[in-house]
């Protein structure tokens, strides 16, 4: 869909199939997808559609059975070794024995930054996610939303080209989630990185994304791509606009249509 060269794309997924040894299930089947730099792309679909697996294939944490993934013109493996990925999971996965500041600094330590540079960067990140004053707290002293903000700060601390997020707000309450959605957009605009965001919330996908990839299960396939043409920057009010509902409905129908097809196919057997 894009005329851009392969090596200019943020992510190029070509013919990716993933079959798991156990039970021989096909998690992903012939996925082709290209992401442009600066895009915010959500992967949405029912559970078991392989969206988390696809995210891990992009991040070189899971090897595809067939096909290739390139990130910024490099292989996914090389991109991981070059520390091009910032990852955020559904749980914050903070290190209990480290303070907020030291959690954020961990990737920087691994990248060999010196103490002074680390401290400066941590200070910036703490301000970016609005956690100033909590630097020396331990994770268990923070609320779920604050922990997630630490995880995001940690993922962005080393300025990765690609931010991979696996249902990062799935475990949070609705209010916290909507607030963090806005914060994430602000951070995304400030950092200019490309985001791949896995979610099973239709409204979250519409609100956050520039583009949504709808996936269908068994085997995991791309059921459709939807451009989200809501103006940038997004604001909380947009959740009430007619265009927002149109897009949400479009996604819902794509999801439902594919699930219905699936049931029909299975019924025929």
């Amino acid at each position, binding site marked *: 869909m894009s005329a851009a060269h392969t090596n200019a794309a943020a992510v190029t997924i070509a013919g990716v199939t993933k079959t798991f040894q156990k039970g021989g299930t096909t998690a992903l089947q012939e996925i082709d997808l290209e992401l442009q730099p600066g895009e915010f792309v959500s992967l949405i679909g029912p559970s078991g559609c392989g969206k988390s697996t696809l995210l891990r294939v992009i991040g070189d944490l899971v090897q595809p059975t067939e096909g290739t993934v390139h990130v910024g013109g490099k292989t996914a493996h090389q991109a991981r070794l070059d520390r091009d990925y910032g990852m955020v999971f559904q749980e914050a996965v903070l290190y209990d024995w480290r303070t907020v500041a030291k959690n954020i600094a*961990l990737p920087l330590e691994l990248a060999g930054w010196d103490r002074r540079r680390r401290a400066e960067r941590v200070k910036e990140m703490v301000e970016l996610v609005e956690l100033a004053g909590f630097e020396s707290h331990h994770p268990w002293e923070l609320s779920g939303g604050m922990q997630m903000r630490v995880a995001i700060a940690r993922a962005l601390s080393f300025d990765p080209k690609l931010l991979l997020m696996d249902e990062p707000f799935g475990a949070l309450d609705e209010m916290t989630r909507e607030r963090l959605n806005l914060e994430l957009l602000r951070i995304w605009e400030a950092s200019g990185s490309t985001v791949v965001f896995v979610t099973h919330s239709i409204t979250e996908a519409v609100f956050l994304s520039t583009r949504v990839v709808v996936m269908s299960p068994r085997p995991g396939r791309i059921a459709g791509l939807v451009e989200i043409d809501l103006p940038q920057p997004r604001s909380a009010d947009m959740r009430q606009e007619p265009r927002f509902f149109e897009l949400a409905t479009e996604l819902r129908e794509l999801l439902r249509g594919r699930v219905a097809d699936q049931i029909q196919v299975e019924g025929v057997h």
Partner: protein
Amino acid sequence: MVTEPAPLARAERAWPIDLLKRVAVTALVLAVLWAFWEGYRWLWMQTGWTRPFVVDELTMPPLADIVSRLWEPLAEGQPPLIRDLLDKSAFTAREAGFGFALGAVVGFAIGVLLHHSRLLRRGFLPYVVASQTIPILAVAPMVVIWGGSIGLPVWARVGVISAFLTFFPVTINTIKGLDSADPRALELMRSYAASPWKVLWKVKFPASLPFVFAALKVSATASVVGAIIGELPSSIQDGLGGAILNFNQYYSLDPSALWATNIVAAALGIAFFGVVVLAERLVVRTAPEHVA
């Protein structure tokens, strides 16, 4: 969005009372044990009961005699027994301390090795287990002779025997502790392209600490036992093992001396345990609900 550091503050404010409470509880427990010992003696001697064993001055000397024995000389014109026992404790403590440290380091190293290789684990773990089924008395003479041939001082040789007892719990719990690291935390480290060494040091090792410290507590007391037993076959007279063997032979003449020595040995074990508990408090930082 203020979180509550209240529990910490409360604990800090209340520490003198807390300390007082602890001292009181300790004193109370000691008093109850003392009363139980003396009560048991009194009842069995009054009634003349012979089960499970006859109670007399030989089988159960009065506690007061045992404690006061510490301040009496071993023989005419010698310093009080406690002086002698403290000197011997120092010697045994050196053996046990060396044994504990050696056992902890070797045990941890073996644990790390076996954690990283499934093949090694399968191949070697049975022998690690088997090593613990061999009575320490059967190994002691070889260690003493081998150690002597490479010029190790006597206390270090006994330390090696003690280490034989202390490495095992550390190995087992190190493996378990390293395995306990959160898989998502490891996935995260992969995404940072962290080297195996960094993963071990930054994630697995801190995650293993609660397990390792649980093992170190077992090893701390075992190291004292190991040192005392290690002294026996080597006929070392400078430590508590030598004293115990000696007082064993004179038990019918002077039972309180052996009991007194046992109390000192127990105190040494408790001191070792206490040091590990203290170190754990300083080192392990996890969420309060994770602290076992």
